[in-house]
């Protein structure tokens, strides 16, 4: 694995802070009704992404996840302005405004969605890995899912296929404690999600998902195994989401104290503590990062705000590859 250096920490700090502030901005503009529909924010889970990115080969590896998906593509290299514009429903968005919050995609940056149907992306992740194996490419796919998603049949079928064909895929469950308002313990006899790998003899284990260092180490082992032909791995990241499931969630299913407990091990604070302890940056340098992040978020908002809505013809332009597809009329 690439060494974890001062630069890594500084990058982690800036990235994670940016993701956090990006999501906060989305929450703010949601209230202003500039972003509509569902809005699932990543706050609290940033270490999973930061650690994973460190372990990946960003020149070739792939990523796919569920609908909590605004910041992963940014991590993969997508211009955050385009992600923000997508949420505003603008033509400059990653999907030209067609997909919205739950459906961010980037072919260029090997980010394969953004999937709204719980568990739907799990076989897709295996499929990406299948194609890489088929074409003898040495790319690895990281396929993320929630703790709720692991109860879908799709996971079990995909696990079996991935093991049977030894596909280069790392399945990562981001166990943030809840599927909407339902805790893990209320929906399964077995609460240790990582053990789902055991039935398929897939290498598996639990990981502290609040610490990017641990995440990076464990993901790296899995990615390395996959790249060397050793097949899939299943990792359960123990993490936490600070905000509600989506925007209309009164959160009666948990206490404020529980949320506060997790904030004590906040990934951004953990990284910042190391930076300060090891004197990787001065207070002035840290303040400069904070300022840069704030400006970047503002730029994203301005870009999204100032972009145009898509032209009406686009409704039909992006459905089929066939250019002259004969759509039926739906009204006069």
């Amino acid at each position, binding site marked *: 694995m690439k060494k974890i250096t001062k630069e890594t920490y500084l990058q982690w700090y800036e990235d994670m802070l940016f993701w956090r502030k990006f999501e906060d901005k989305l929450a703010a503009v949601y209230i202003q009704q500039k972003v509509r529909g569902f809005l699932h924010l990543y706050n609290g889970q940033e270490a999973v992404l930061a650690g994973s990115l460190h372990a990946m080969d960003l020149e070739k590896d792939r990523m796919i996840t569920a609908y909590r998906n605004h910041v992963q593509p940014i991590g993969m290299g997508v211009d955050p302005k385009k992600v923000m514009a997508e949420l505003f429903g603008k033509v400059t968005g990653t999907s030209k405004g067609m997909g919205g919050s739950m459906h961010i995609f980037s072919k260029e940056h090997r980010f394969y969605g953004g999937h709204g149907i719980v568990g739907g992306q799990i076989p897709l992740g295996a499929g990406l890995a299948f194609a890489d194996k088929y074409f003898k490419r040495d790319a690895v796919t990281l396929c993320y899912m929630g703790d709720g998603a692991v109860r879908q*049949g799709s996971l079990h079928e995909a696990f079996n296929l991935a093991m049977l064909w030894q596909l280069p895929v790392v399945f990562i469950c981001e166990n943030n404690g809840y599927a909407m308002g339902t805790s893990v313990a209320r929906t399964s006899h077995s609460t240790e999600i990582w053990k789902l790998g055991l039935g398929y003899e897939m290498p598996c284990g639990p990981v502290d998902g609040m610490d990017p260092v641990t995440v990076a180490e464990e993901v790296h082992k899995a990615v390395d195994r996959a790249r060397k032909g050793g097949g899939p791995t299943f990792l359960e990241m123990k993490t936490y989401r600070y905000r509600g499931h989506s925007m209309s969630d009164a959160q009666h*299913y948990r206490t404020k104290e529980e949320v506060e407990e997790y904030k004590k091990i906040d990934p951004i604070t953990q990284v910042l503590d190391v930076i300060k302890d090891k004197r990787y940056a001065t207070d002035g340098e840290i303040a400069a990062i904070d300022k840069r992040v704030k400006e970047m978020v503002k730029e994203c908002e301005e870009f999204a705000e100032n972009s145009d*809505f898509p032209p009406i013809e686009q409704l039909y332009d992006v459905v089929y590859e066939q250019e002259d597809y004969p759509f039926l009329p739906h009204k006069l």
Partner: protein
Amino acid sequence: MKTIQFREAIAEAMSEEMRRDDSIYLMGEEVAEYNGAYKASKGMLDEFGPERVLDTPISELGFAGVGVGSAMIGNRPIIEFMTFNFSLVGIDQIINNAAKMRQMSGGQFNIPIVFRGPTASAGQLAATHSQAFESWFANTPGLKVVVPSNPKDAKGLLKSAIRDDDPVIFMESEQMYGDKGEVPEGEYTIPLGVAEIGREGSDVTIVSFGKIIKEAYAAAEDLDKEGISCEVIDLRTVRPMDSEAILKSVKKTNRLVILEEAWPFGNVATEITYQVQQHAFDYLDAPIVKINTADTPAPYSPTLLEEWLPNKEDVIKAVHKVLYK
């Protein structure tokens, strides 16, 4: 009469039936402790307890099938899908098992089950969360499909659906749960398969069902000011279809507009169109017009969504067209 919300009508129907018959249970994601993702089962866990109001994991295939299996030997399950978009994960159990069990077993096993939840679009939720599968389910022999548009019908029809000895697909809308309407104080049911004339009129018939019918009523209101009298028929049940009510109205008005929130290819409106031209061809003074959602997945962007989803103006245009105005 009393005024209640649509979500309360749903909860009342389920609760009244569960008090009457203890073989009924309610199962689905967030139905118990959270009181329903859209609060349509509020208070039910408290009243009936966790044996009869069950939260499930996100395992639609599993719990749809558990519902069907338990219905083979005595239960009368109500299975809630958080939305019918997610029923696709479990649709095999509905189409291959619930719908076919009675026929395959030569009449030995009827399946008295209700699958319910919201259907169709609900704002900018984009492609996978804005789908209307009424016509998919209605295409399947063995199923009945009910789509109420107001609290009174929701309560009366849901009670009938629960009492029905065959599988019923019961479709609501996120955007209707907050709607208020008058419902009778006491016990009542509304039979499945019977349409309602929601507004009487003489110049043109508009057939619709579910949430989108509000656009038909709004159009009828506007058209009335122009001196055009619209008869609005609320199908309420899509399968079996109350063709008689449609034909009777068309024979009176001689003009038909159908408003359905669904993709245009082979939908419920298509079936109505076939039946009317077959049985009332000579009564028609203009070709039938159907208004649907665009022939594309739902877009996210607000401007495109507005174009995609039919509205009052589209209905007014269609009425003008069939009246050659």
